Each structure stands twice: as C-alpha cells, then as structure tokens.
C-alpha cells in the first residue's frame, strides 16, 4: 500500500513540475525521490528542522528559533513588544499605540494568545477572555468569505471605547453527554452553547455563531514555508484515494490573489501577515493597510464617529514586526520519545491512520532553516469532521463541517502553558481522549477504532500526543 502510494505521488509530483519548485535542493538522491519520501514516508529524517528549542517550561512557545540571526533579534523583540502591548483609546500621548476599538474584544494580541498558547473557553457564567464568537449569516461574500451579520459584523465585540456601546456579552452554557467506549469506560463530552446578553442592536436571531478560542501562534513561519506545490500534490493524492480533505483557497489581500489558506480554524488566511492584520482589526479594532476601515457597521453611529488613532492605526513597520515575531516563534522539541509507552502510542497513531491527516512530515524549501522537512502533524487541508463539530459557517471553500487539520506539534505542553487542558476550536475537549472522540466525518473510522482500543493502548496514544 505504501509503495503504491509513493509511486502514485511520484507520478503526481513529476506531473505538476514539483521537482523545480521553490528552489529545493536535495540532501541526497534526486530531489523528487527525497520529497516523495518525505510526503509518504514518516521514517524519513534526512535533514530535520534546526533551531527548535529544547524547552519544556511555560516559555516553550515563546522562544525564537535558536538559529535566529543576531541582526534579526531586534525585529523579533520589537514584534514581541507590539504583540504584547496594550493598545490605548485615541487620542493618546502614546501615538504609536493609540486607536483601540471603537469596538474590541481585548487590549492586546497577547490577550487571546497568552504565552503564545491556546486560549481557554470559560466555565459557565464566566466572561470570555481568550475566546471570541464568530458570527455569520447564510450566504458568502463575492470573494467567498463568510457573510457577516449586517450590524454586529463577523464577531461579537464585548468591549468598546468610552462613548461607544459594546455589542453585548457572551457566556457559555455547557451541555454534557456521555460516550461509552467498547470496554465499558464512560467519557463525558461537553458542547458549548453561546448565550448572549446586553445585545446592543437587537437579537442575533438566525445568525450562526461559532465560539473559538485563540489558537497557538508558534511554528507559523514554518507552515507558511511549505511549498504550495507540495500541498497541491497532497491534495491530488487525497483526491485520488477517495477525496479525504482539500485545500481551502482564499482571497489574500496582501497579494491580491487567491492563495492556499493555511491559518485559522478553517484555513481562511493565507499568510501570517494577513492573519495578523485581520485579527488586529477584528479583535482590537486596529486598522492597517490591509484593513483600513474601523470595525463598525453603518448602523453603529457612535462607533463610526469615534476618534481614530491614525490612518492606519498600526504602521506597516509595526505590522511586519508582529508577523516577523510570529513567523520566528520556534516549535518546542519533542520529549520522552524513547519511552516504550510513547513508542507504542506512535504505532497506534499510525495504525489508526491519524497520520493520514495529522501528517507527520511536510517538505520545506531547502534554504529555510536548513531542513528538508518539518513535523507539524497536519496536512493544512480542511476535512469534514462531522455534524458534532459543525458550526454552520462557511469560509471560502470550508463549509460548516470542515475544519483545518490542527497541527499537533507542541501539543504536549499546551496544558502546562495554558494552565488548563482544553482542545478543539472551542475548547470543549477537556482531555485528549475527549478531543479524539469528537472526531467524526472523515475521521469517524479512526475515532471508532480508538473507541475500540484497550485502555492501555488508549493511554499509550495519549502519552504519544503528550510527547509532541
């Protein structure tokens, strides 16, 4: 089976001219051989990524690649300061950081990505802090993006500058249900229902709502560097094997073109720079070259009339520094890889075909950190994950049940860094077994196989995931 796949992929790579893409230089053998091996053979370890950090502390997601040049260090630190800095209401003496809002969710980028880690869903009755609620109405924009609510926009902002009415408050109502595994073990699953209050502009009625926690922000530069041609090859391979997943193709205002979406829960952003600018506007109300309008709808008159902090509010230099910072946040090294339980868990990970989507290796251009591959445990494609996770929202090609394969690298430190164990886009899973049991759709067979495993194997799989 592996041989057949590899042969098919080689043909595919040759067919699309991948061998000449992105200036790749093979470490050994022919280029196509090496890349094909990387794409289909998880044992390939020809030139692994340099510069990862051997840090298992709560700073593990906050380190630059150890290979970061000294000359780039100032830019990295500057980007970090912009990422962590609270923006202020304009006008302000601090003209470099004024322009918060008029509507906003928090004060700083860092607010939703504390220690660059995963945000957390609040418990019942608590306010959102590191989570937002995405809003959409049926239909799509001309460019394919989601269609925002006519007044509230594409996310509900719980805060606003003085003189502007905040849009409302959200809390989560958790619904519990129980799943029984084949060996009789019962696991409780929970699903959030957003509950809105103090809505400033009337009920949301039939608006589709999708609570989403702040995602991790390390390793993004590496995902950005995976050659598009390699991803397209993977997509074709998936199509030839029964259509498991596809690449989201999105409008990228940075380049003005359609590009492969790599970031966000539905792969709706093509670049770190674009995603940074989009979050600046959506979460903080900070305008940029790419999003020059304030986050107010025409009906929000006091919002429209509020003072801004410049035009745009974040300079190109600040925005690029943030993107540079995010692109250069290193991925922590794996731990405990020799432990028998972890080794066994890795076997199970492959046996359950988890790695068909959480792909163990993706190729890199040869001039990027001297690696010929990375191990992100994602294919950057969106997959149908079933009705259980559906949120009703369509973003470009990704429909209500489609979610991008979450990169699993660094996953094992998430609970330490975020101070709580939560997974999936809305933090509903309180453990890795819960997260696996929420998999449906294309992942249903893997999920069912997991539910049939003996307890020791389930624990081994968890141990493997914690080693990432």
């Amino acid at each position, binding site marked *: 089976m592996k041989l057949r796949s590899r042969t098919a992929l080689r043909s595919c790579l040759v067919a699309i001219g991948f061998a000449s893409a992105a200036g790749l230089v093979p470490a050994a053998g022919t280029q196509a051989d090496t890349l094909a091996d990387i794409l289909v053979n998880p044992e390939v370890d020809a030139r692994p990524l340099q510069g990862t950090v051997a840090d298992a502390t709560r700073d593990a997601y906050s380190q630059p690649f150890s290979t970061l040049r000294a000359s780039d260090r100032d830019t990295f630190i500057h980007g970090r*300061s912009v990422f*962590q800095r609270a923006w202020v*209401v304009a006008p302000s003496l601090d*003209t470099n950081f004024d322009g918060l809002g008029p509507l906003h969710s928090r004060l700083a980028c860092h607010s939703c990505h504390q220690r660059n880690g995963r945000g957390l869903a609040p418990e019942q009755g608590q306010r959102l802090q590191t989570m937002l609620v995405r809003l959409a109405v049926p239909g799509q924009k001309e460019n394919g993006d989601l269609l925002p609510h006519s007044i509230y926009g594409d996310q509900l902002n719980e805060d606003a500058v003085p003189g502007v009415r905040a849009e409302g408050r959200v809390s989560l109502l958790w619904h519990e249900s129980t799943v029984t595994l084949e060996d009789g073990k019962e696991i409780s699953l929970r699903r959030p229902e957003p509950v809105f209050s103090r809505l400033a502009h009337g009920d949301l009625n039939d608006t589709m709502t999708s609570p989403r926690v702040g995602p991790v922000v390390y390793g993004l530069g590496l995902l950005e560097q995976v050659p598009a041609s390699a991803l397209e090859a993977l997509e074709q391979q998936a199509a030839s094997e029964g259509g498991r997943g596809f690449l989201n193709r999105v409008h990228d205002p940075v380049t003005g073109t359609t590009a492969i979406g790599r970031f966000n829960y539905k792969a709706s952003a093509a670049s770190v720079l674009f995603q940074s600018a989009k979050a600046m506007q959506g979460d903080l109300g900070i305008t940029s070259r790419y999003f020059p309008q304030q986050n107010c709808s025409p009906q929000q008159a006091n919002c*429209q009339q509020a003072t801004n902090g*410049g035009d745009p509010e974040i300079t190109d230099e600040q925005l690029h520094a943030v993107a540079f910072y995010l692109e250069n946040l290193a991925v922590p090294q794996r731990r405990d890889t020799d432990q028998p339980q972890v080794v066994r868990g890795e076997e199970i990970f492959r046996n359950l075909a988890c790695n068909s989507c959480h792909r163990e290796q993706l190729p890199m251009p040869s001039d990027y950190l001297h690696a010929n591959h990375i191990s992100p445990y994602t294919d950057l494609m969106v997959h149908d994950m079933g009705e259980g996770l559906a949120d009703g929202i369509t973003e470009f090609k990704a429909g209500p049940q489609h979610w991008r394969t979450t990169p699993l690298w660094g996953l094992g430190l998430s609970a330490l860094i975020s101070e709580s164990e939560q997974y999936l886009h809305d933090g509903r899973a309180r453990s890795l077994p819960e997260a696996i049991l929420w998999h449906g759709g294309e992942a249903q067979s893997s999920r069912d196989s997991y539910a049939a495993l003996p307890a020791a194997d389930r624990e081994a799989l968890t141990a493997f995931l914690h080693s990432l």
Partner: protein
Amino acid sequence: MPGIVRSMEQADRSRTRCPLITDPWVARREQDRERQGCRDRAPMDGFTACPAPFWQPKDLATEWLTRVLDRSTRPMTLTILGLLLSSGAFAQDDSVVVMTSYPDNVIARFEAAFEEKHPEIDMQVLWRSSGDAMAWLAQPGHAPVDVYWTPSPRRFEQLKESGELRQLSDSQRALPDHIGATVISDPDGYFVASETAGYGFAVNRAGLTEAGIPVPADWSDLGQAEYAGTVGIPVPSAVGYAPVLVDIVIQAYGWERGWQVWSEIAGNAQLIRRGATLVSDEVVSARTTVGLSIDFFVASAIANGADIDFVYPLHGGMNPAHVAILEEGVNPGAANAFVDFVLSVEGQTLLGHPDIRKLPVRPDVYANLAADYHNPFAAAEQGAYDYDHALGQPRLPLLTALFEQMLVTEHESHVRLWQAVHAAERSGADMSAARELLGTPLISEQEAMLNTVQAPFRQGADEMGNGGSANPAAIAYQNDWHAQILDRHARVEPLVKDWLP
C-alpha cells in the same frame, strides 16, 4: 445620539475642523496631525478624525442635563455633574471604569476574579501609561474614571494634590503603610499600596560560575573589575522602572559615593534600552550575566521555568503600586468594591501567580505563597528596606537626566576608560585621579535637592516620559553636563593612555 459630548464636539467642528486641544495633548496631537491630517469622521473626506471627547451619559436624566448646558457653560458642566453624582443621584454601580497601566496578564486575572466575586459589576478597563493617564484626566469632557490602579507613585501624589482623589475608608487603609523605611501608602488615606516590587539582580549563576565570579551581594560589588562586561543596566530614560534603581544606590551609599558606584557599574556594563522582559531575556540567554531589574519580571520567568536567579541586594529598594478612587467617578459603590477586592486576601493572593509575581501588601498572604517567595516585611526586619521612597520620587526625573548625561550618552568611551583604569590598577598604578574624574557627580547634592533644579525635569517627564527634555532649562542643564563629561573624558584619557584597550 451620544449626548452632549457629541453635541459640543459638533459645535466645535462647525467653527473649525480641528478644535484646539488642552495641554498636555498639544505637542503629541500636533505631531499626529502632521503625520495624518485631521478631519471629521465622515468617511472618504480625505482627513483623519480630530480628537473627540468620549463620555456618553449613562441615563436620560444626565443626557437631558448635559444637552441643556451649551458650550458656553462647558467649564461648569463637570463640576455640576460631579456634585450631583457625588450625591449618588446618578450612581448606577453596575460597572466600574478602572484606569491602569498593568499588562494584560495582570488585568485579565483580576478582571476574571473580580467579576466572579461581583457578577453584578462590569469591569471596564481604560489602559493608559501613567503620563497618558494624567492627560486623559486633564482633558475636558473625558469619560469619567472610577478607579486609578497603577505602579506610578508620583501620579498618585499629583492627583491627591489636585484634589482628584476621594479619601478611602478606614478598612481600606488598614494594611501596613510602610515596609522598612519605605512609606508605601498615603498617610492621609487618599491612595493605598496595592502591591510592591523590589529591585535587585537577575543572575545567571552558571555564567558566573563559569567566569569564576561570585554572586554579587550588593550594588558596589558590580563595580569591581572582575564584573567587567558582565552587567546589564536598563537605561533609566528608556525603561520605566529604572529611575528608582538610580535613587536606591544613591540613597544607599550617599550622593558622592553613590554616583561613584554607578560610574563603576556602568563601566562594567552594557546598556539595555528596552523594558518589558528584556533584562531577564538577556540573562537567560547569558548575553548578560547579571542584569539589574525589578523583581517581578525575573521572578515570573523563574516561576515559569527559566534557569536564572534573582538576588535582593543588601541595600534594597522598592516601588509600590497604588489604588485610589477618583472624585469624578460615577460608580462609587462599584469603585469601593474593586478597591476592597484588590486589597483582599483573594486579590492579594492573585499577585503570586507565576505570570504576575508581585509582592503583596498584606503580610498574612505570604503564608499562602511558596516558601521561597520574597517577603519584604520579613526582609525589612533585617534592615533590607531602608530606602526612602518619598525622598526619591520628586527627584527621579533629575536623576534620570544626570544618569543619561554622565553614563549613557558617552557610554562607549566611559567603558573604554574604565577598562583602562582596571588594567592600570592591576599593574599597580594609582588611578585615584581618573576614578574621581569618572565618578564625581555632575552637580552637588544640595543643588540636586533644589526644587528649581528638579522642577524642569519633572515637567519634561510629565510631558514626554522618563526621557523628556522639552523644558528649555532642562535642555540647558543637560547641554552643560554633556560638555562636562566630554571634558572629563578628555582629561582621563592621558591618565590612562598606557592601558587603553
């Protein structure tokens, strides 16, 4: 219709597109206007918006009242409203506006815990750096602030002097008002300490061991020749917490010797111009072996796994943060609830979180914290905190400027000359003349204590931050000091010429 503030603003705009702004906004906003242009908010008209006041009345009665007062009575508006509001006529107490300069990791934890304890109160955060906070409060028609909560003692003194603070209740004033010789709360009860932070050394112990250098116990140790090239100093004009560092050493050793110590340390040091966590970053990465720092950045890094240490020197010093209730606030009940929470066992315990690591001002809370958590009350009993914070506060801007001219502007030359002094002394030469030239303070202590000398620098700092020098008198002083330094270096040069690197 947002109410009177919009009405007043529209009246202004009917007269001019860019209404004048009251000090101290003018300089910065004019820079903004040059950069951006200025316009009404109407889209696509080719300008950016002029500053607008923000306050939106909270109920119809207030809105009616504000509408009937035209702009000719504007100066009276806040006064009248203040009287009415202080009477409780419009207090709603379903929200509290807290102005602060704390980072989000502090704010978020207090916000979550406070709202969990008081679900009936919506905590609204107005983030301002300390100078910017004063500008906000000085702006006519600004949105009222209920609570000011920030680590910037001088601002609280200013607000008290200008009558903008309410006296706190007896229960809110019940915690200790001093630690050692450092008075941390206002004796008259207009503001109280909400936490404090100590100063000392972030130390890469492995780096020191490798270099065969002992862990420093006090500031003067860092001026010894063996520490050459190992010390990192945050530049006081660029790093918010650093001016107090200058004063701690000067109070500890006296004016003359204190500047000598600084000269020696700076001769061994590299300068770190950014704040935030950079000093600890430098020490973690071993680019600097000993970094002078405020404790919580380093303690947080340590608590989160960084392999460094923090040493509290024999001559310690601290910088308290405060909380106060503003007279102009419209939610006095909610404001009191917030202050009570900040000072409560629950609120003070939050300070021990690994991402915060501030020093609580409730002595009883330390029993709940890690055994190695620095307890300044216990340390003070051993004489560690003889630092007089109140003495230092008015002169910090002056000290910052003196430090800048004496040790920063010609730092490269300063280091080079000190390297030569150390080399000369290793060969047995007498370098006392060079030491005196490099370490003698630029002005006498008597002169430094004169209000006429301190005031121009305070004014500059109010307008421009630590590094402010817009005042003509301050600029003249600094030009003179810089000339003195150039002259001194030129005079040291021949004394050490045989040992220059």
